[in-house]
């Protein structure tokens, strides 16, 4: 461990709870290290995956997102989406060579000054132990695009799952969402996403052939570039990212199991139902 290492931590704090929690920590003289740079956001749901990626790609060693406790969101459902996007982003951090321990989501209310200071101290000491982040991702990697795809897939519709899922499941869910919401004006979105959905279903029943995976790939590439609006484009790109980076998830499903590498969001169903 590098004793002289001073990590840079970016903390996105929700205005209503966690920022107030940080404020309270200060008032109550609970200390936390100065390497943590808080950024106040209106809601943890405002933190787009792109922000997190930008922080990492700009030199942050760790990123903390903190919001209201489930059910307490000032905007009712903001932190539900925070959670969904966080789970999905986690799946891709690993792929980008960013250890998952460097990214953390916490629920901290305005009265939890002590919790804030504990989380901050603990996170910083973890990052200190991990040392500086050295990214091996190619410099021309379009993390902004990936961020947008994660944001879109993580924000589409309502999705609850009690056990961990994988990227194949999410693609399937997202394609269904796109089909239900496509305005049907352009061909790639109207028909292309339907064809991708049909091919994805074939992954689930293990009947997909290598040729069909190639067609799925060609479709995703084309739909991602030539759809009229972002709904179709995101569908194409999401499938393309899955095929490019989550091939293992797909292969697991072809074998009849699941990689279970995207955590469940258990408990949210009851909260959202309220």
């Amino acid at each position, binding site marked *: 461990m590098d004793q002289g290492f001073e990590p840079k931590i970016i903390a996105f704090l929700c205005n209503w709870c966690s920022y107030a929690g940080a404020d309270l920590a200060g008032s109550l003289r609970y200390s936390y290290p100065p390497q943590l740079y808080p950024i106040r956001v209106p809601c943890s749901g405002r933190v787009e995956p792109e922000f997190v990626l930008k922080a990492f790609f700009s030199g942050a060693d760790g990123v903390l997102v903190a919001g209201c406790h489930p059910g307490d969101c000032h905007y009712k459902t903001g932190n539900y989406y925070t959670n969904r996007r966080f789970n999905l982003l986690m799946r891709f951090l690993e792929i980008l060579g960013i250890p998952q321990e460097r990214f953390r989501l916490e629920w901290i209310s305005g009265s939890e000054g002590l919790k804030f200071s504990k989380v901050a101290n603990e996170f910083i000491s973890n990052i200190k132990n991990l040392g500086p982040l050295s990214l091996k991702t190619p410099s021309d990697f*379009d993390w902004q*695009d990936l961020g947008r795809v994660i944001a879109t897939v993580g924000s589409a519709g309502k999705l609850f799952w009690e056990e961990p899922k994988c990227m194949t499941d999410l693609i399937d869910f997202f394609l269904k969402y*796109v*089909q*239900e*919401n*496509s*305005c*049907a*004006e*352009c*061909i*790639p*979105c*109207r*028909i*292309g*996403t*339907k*064809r991708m959905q*049909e091919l994805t279903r074939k992954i689930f029943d293990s009947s997909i052939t290598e040729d069909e995976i190639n*067609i799925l790939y*060609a*479709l995703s590439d*084309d739909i991602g*570039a*030539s*759809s*009229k609006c972002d709904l179709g*484009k995101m569908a194409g790109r999401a499938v393309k990212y899955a095929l490019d980076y989550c091939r293992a998830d797909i292969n697991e499903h072809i074998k009849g199991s699941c990689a279970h590498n995207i955590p469940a969001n258990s408990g949210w169903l009851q909260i959202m139902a309220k």
Partner: protein
Amino acid sequence: MGEVKLTIDGKTITVPQGTTILKAAEKVGVKIPTLCFLEHVGLKNIKHDVGACRVCVVEVEGRKDFLSACNTPVEEGMVVKTHSPKVIAARKLNLEMMLSEHHLDCPVCPKNGVCELQSLCAELNIRTIRPQGEKKNIPIDDSSPSIVRNPNKCIICQRCITACKVLQSVDALELFGNGYEAIVRPKGGVSLIETQCVNCGQCALVCPTGAIVERDDTWKVWDAIADPNKHVVVQTAPATHVTIGEAFGLPIGTDITGKMVAALKRLGFDAVFDTNWSADLTIMEEGYELIHRIKNGGVLPQFTSCSPGWIKFLEEFYPDLIPHISSCKSPQQMLGPIAKTYYAQKKGINPENIFVVSVMPCTAKKYEAARPEMNAASKFWNNPNIERDVDVVLTSRELIRMIREAGIDFANLPEETYDPVMGEGTGAAQIFGATGGVMEAALRTAYEVVTGKTLQKLDFEDVRGMKDIKEAAVSMNGITVKVLVAHSLGAARQLMEKVRAGELKDYHFIEVMTCPGGCIGGGGQPIPTTVDEREQRIKGIYERDKNLKLRKSHENPEIKAIYKEFLKEPLGHLSHQLLHTHYTPRGK
């Protein structure tokens, strides 16, 4: 407006701001393929560029996404690649997606050979359809006597919606549903006959596939011709005189009257008549009606009644203005009952055995012929065995198909002439086929009837041309007759709003043609019918008018003869029985 400099396929070009990539590419000689794009929907000012098909996508340097060339304006410094391997691949795959839900029954499709989807596939060298999956199986809607819709062939380009909503302001079609389930359907999901559709067929003209086509009635005509008991007569609308030839490689607007008559005789019709004859009859009746209204304080302005799409439009949307419309039937519906009365008597044929076919540029004529009130001959003879005044209406396209089916070498046919009794037509009748023509024909006759003087200059240039609303004024015996001409129902709607508001009280006569350009741009005309074709055909119409010896309806000897021998006088008792009709307020 400023200028924009950009590079397309390595060629630098400067174009006015607001130019689309598609148009800019044309200037450097690059043709970007398109499918859903339609530069002019009937009229020059109506454009369809929703960017639905994604066939015109191009690559722009520095952008991850492709842009659709048809509706993206150029930007300063843009570097566009229109045919890079990436773009070609995307274009092909987009087309393959479209084909993956298409029922590929091209050999039996009514649009076989004129289908834009088909020719684009040939152009882009499509040889396989990689994506495969579910295809829709929606029942074909053949509820309308004019139009048949097969939603399974629809590629949702939405051209028909633009034609119906923007050009015609009828708005009978909608895009309904999301994603793959989406369809273009009659508004509210009812069948077409239950909508306010006026049967104009402009949707069929712009449909790139076989999703909207005219109803094919050719088999009924073949059956009638084959029946030895039937005396099958046919009439040809003014607009068909200059359009049928296009399908057989003749230049657009060529006068093919003689060849068409020859072809009809070879098809086996017992007598070939000209709707131009009954157009002259219409002018007599309608002209006298106008004079009568002006002299006796009748409802003015009087509206023309030749265009059946327009009639239904008025009944649907402006039923309160029905008193304005001339009670004259259209030329088609005038010839029908005369064939089954006057002609039958003259020839000694049992009217029950006379079968009247008409060749029309129009899909709405099919609806018109099917109207319950169009059975004047039956009433005249008090014989329920006589059915319709006009038994079958064929569109230009259907006649073209019959000529092909019969193996007739149309382009090389000798010219033949119409049969007597109803075969003579004047130039005034000929111009019925173009917007402003009915008005001009009426003015030629009305002027001479009212003033008793010979009209020196027959050409009323003010009412001609593709401008959507035209105006003219003619002085007759101290009265200045003010007239308006509109074509396309969108333009008609503008006028009707003004009539309703009482703003056009000092006008006397309004001509409305449902289709842009008049009948030469009708929904049953050869495909393609674009603004260019329309303009060429209009030229052909006026050319034929100029070449005819008789150019005024009241000078037609066969018209003089029927008044002398049968009808006695315009607006007389028999005229009212056979040549005039009434209208039905519809609307919702």
